[in-house]
Structures are given as C-alpha cells and as structure tokens.
C-alpha cells in the first residue's frame, strides 16, 4: 500500500460540524403524488411551521420506491417560487397591464359572464328540431394536470349543469 503523504488526520470539528443534522428532524411529513407525468411517483412533503422545507421521493411507494426524475426532484421549486402568482390578476379589454383583484370579486365577475353567455347561447334544439340542450359559445380545456375529483366536478357543472359541450382536455387515445 503506497503512502500518499499525510494520512488523513482526525481534524477538530467546527461547532457547526459537531452539531450537523438534517433539517427533517421534527418536521411534519405528508404523503403526496408527483404532479408531473403519469408514472405516479409517491412523494413526501416535509413542512415546519407551515412552511414547505423539502419534497423527496416516497420510499414506500412501489412504483418509484423513493426515486424521482429531475422534474419530480424539482417539485419543491414549483411550490416555493418567486414567479408564482398568488393574487388574482385581471386584464381589462385592450389594456396593457394587469390589475390585482380579490378571488371573491373574480368568482362574481366570472359567474356573471358565464350566465350571460349561456343565456344568450343556449339552444334547446337544432334547426331540424333535434334535441340539443347545449351551450356552444363557452368552453373549457384542462383536466389531465388537476385532480380526478376536479375533473368530475368540472364535467358535472359545465356539462351536466350548464349544458356546455366543449369540455375538453388533452387526453385523446
């Protein structure tokens, strides 16, 4: 065994090194699922004082067994991100800027527009007298990246409640 000069010494530790530990000590952990692709990797979200401090793979999940891809490993930066929008932004017609609004105001405004558009567009039947009961001038796109229950509510409200036919997402085959 050749020698490579000084053997590693037992160097003294700095105070921080002596006290080194992971930030997960005493954190709350929640089992969640990765929001990216459809592999369905389990994730663990760690929180302390209602602040997200880490997201990593769930070792118990039989699909990923704790592993993640770069996007899954990035899930923390989706939630904790300076670009994230956390207030309602509203752009008036022909305006060149956003205005900040409240969520309640937005729901009120949107509901009024949906009603107005639906009431103007609702068709009980087509020109041949065939039953339609449909609304064609409002539509919705989305579903594959939100929860199952949200998809169900969306289809139920827009399709079953309002008669909107153009309820779509990108799933096709």
């Amino acid at each position, binding site marked *: 065994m050749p020698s*490579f000069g000084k053997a*590693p010494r037992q160097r003294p530790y700095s105070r921080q090194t002596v006290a*080194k530990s992971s930030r997960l000590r005493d954190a709350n952990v929640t089992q969640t699922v990765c929001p990216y692709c459809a592999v369905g990797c389990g994730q663990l979200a760690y929180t302390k004082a209602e602040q997200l401090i880490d997201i990593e*793979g769930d070792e118990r999940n039989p699909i990923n067994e704790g*592993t993640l891809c770069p996007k899954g490993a990035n899930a923390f930066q989706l939630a904790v991100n300076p670009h994230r929008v956390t207030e309602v932004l509203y752009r008036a017609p022909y305006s060149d800027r956003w205005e900040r609004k409240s969520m309640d105001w937005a729901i009120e405004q949107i509901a009024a527009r949906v009603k107005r558009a639906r009431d103007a567009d609702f068709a009980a039947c087509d020109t041949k007298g065939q039953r339609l009961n449909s609304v064609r001038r409002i539509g919705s796109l989305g579903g594959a990246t939100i929860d199952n229950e949200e998809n169900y509510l969306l289809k139920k409200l827009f399709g079953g409640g309002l008669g909107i036919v153009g309820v779509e997402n990108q799933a096709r085959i």
Partner: protein
Amino acid sequence: MTGSAHNDSQTDRTNWLERILAPFQRGTPPAPRTATGFYTDTTVCIGCKACEVACKQWNQLPSDGFEWTGKSYDNTGELSATSWRHVKFVEQLVDTELPQDTAIVEPLEAGTVPDLPGRWLMMSDVCKHCATAPCEQACPTGSLLQNEFENIYLQSDICNGCSYCIAACPFGVITRATFDGHAHKCTLCYDRQRDDLTPACAKACPTESIQFGPIDELRERARERVSELQSLGINDAYLYSDEASEKYSQLNSFYLLIDEPSAYGLPDNPVNPWLFMKGDYLRSGLTGFIAIAMLLIILWLGG
C-alpha cells in the same frame, strides 16, 4: 427576507464577539462510523439528471445560469461550488451506411446488421471523496476534513477561501462560490447521513446508477457487477479507482466505466500532488537559495 429571518430566529451567532470567535472554537469529533461512499454504475445511467436537481433541492443551491453549450445534453458543464453533481454525455456514434436497395434473400443470417449504431455514454460525476484527499492535505484552516464516515467534508463556516484545495484536486471538483468567496463541494449529504438518511442524489436516482452505502459492500457489489457484465460480453467494463494505484489512493466515490477514463473526462492516471511535494519544496528552496546567492554575487561584483 434574509436579515429579518435571521434576527427572528434563534441562532448561535447572537453577539459579535462570538461571531469572531466561532471559527476558532472547535468541538470533539464523534467516534468513527462505518465508512460510506458512492458507487456509480455508468452502464445504467439514463442521463436524466435527477441527481443534479435532487442535490440542488436538498442543499438549496442556486442555478449556474442558463447557457446552452451544444455539448450533447450537458449544459451545466462541470462540477462547481454550486453544482455538486454533474452528468456527462459522451456521444460515440458514427454514420451508419445507408440501406442498400438490393433485394434481401430470406432467411437472413443473424447479426448482419449491428444491433446498435454506437453508444451514448452517460455518467453522473461527483466529488470522489478520496481515501487520501489532496484537498484535505492542502487545506490550511482545517476546513476540509475526513469525517466519521470517511467522507471528505468541507466545513464552510471555517473556510477562508484560500483556494488551495482547488489547485490540489486532480479531478477539478471544487471551485469558489461568487456569493460568499468560499469553496464548496459535495458533502455526501453529511447532514442526512447523520440522521441515517440516504444522500439526496442516490435516493433520487431512478435506475440505481448511483448507489450509496458502506464502502466495502459497494466495492464488492461493483466487482460482482463487472464480472456479470463481462460474462455478458461487455469486456470493457472495469472499476475506476476502487483500488489505490501507485500515484493515487482509492476513491470512496468510484465508478464502473466501459471506456477509457479520459473518454469520460476523468484523468487516466490521477496523481496526488503531495507525492511530489518534497521534491517541489527542495527545488523551490534551492531555486531561492541560488537566486539570493546570484543576487549577492551581482551586488558584490557591481559594488
């Protein structure tokens, strides 16, 4: 956010005297524990870079900026103070000949067309956690040390930014951060190991290309894997620096490769600069002595 957050929370840096003294206060190292390390099997690396992101996430490292390099799918370029994992991509493909339009007579003999047009090698690089580490040897403040897991750990709170470690490392692992002027590198998730957690990169790796564990077990597993690959006809498979050479110690983060080390950007024969330090000291001492002597002679002659 920084300032107020720091003031709000309990820190052990409450007064300035302590802040000045803290770097000089040392504690007792804990008892040694089972030596650990990384074994990186490049034959199952899919170049996904989960290790890079998992490392940045766990350690909350900033990005290194957005620069498209055109070097295959590698855009982070190298290991640095802010990139402690780095995935290399080596394209080894050549043009396949264009199909002939002659009719093919059946049945064909097997193996007339190669199954693969070449290789695309991928390898996740990281600090080698050398058994005898030149960076540790070079560090004047004792910031770099071999910790109780026999990993090379850089104590950033007592690093003075002298950069000797950067010059000493034959693998180009360490650089200095522009943020704080200190050197930083892979800690082998020392904080996680203290709590018996797997390092972030090894945990995230979806294909077990990066394996973490007791170093002896890893070496044994890796050798078995090499014989398995060789039995499958992959005769190029070998382990990089799992054993010491004449000029370098073994690595506690070692690799299974299927091409020359230089193909992966690793030194074919790493050298511990310490081995040549005696001669270097002698030469520089001698040079200084001769220079002074010459100067004196010139002065004497001139005078």
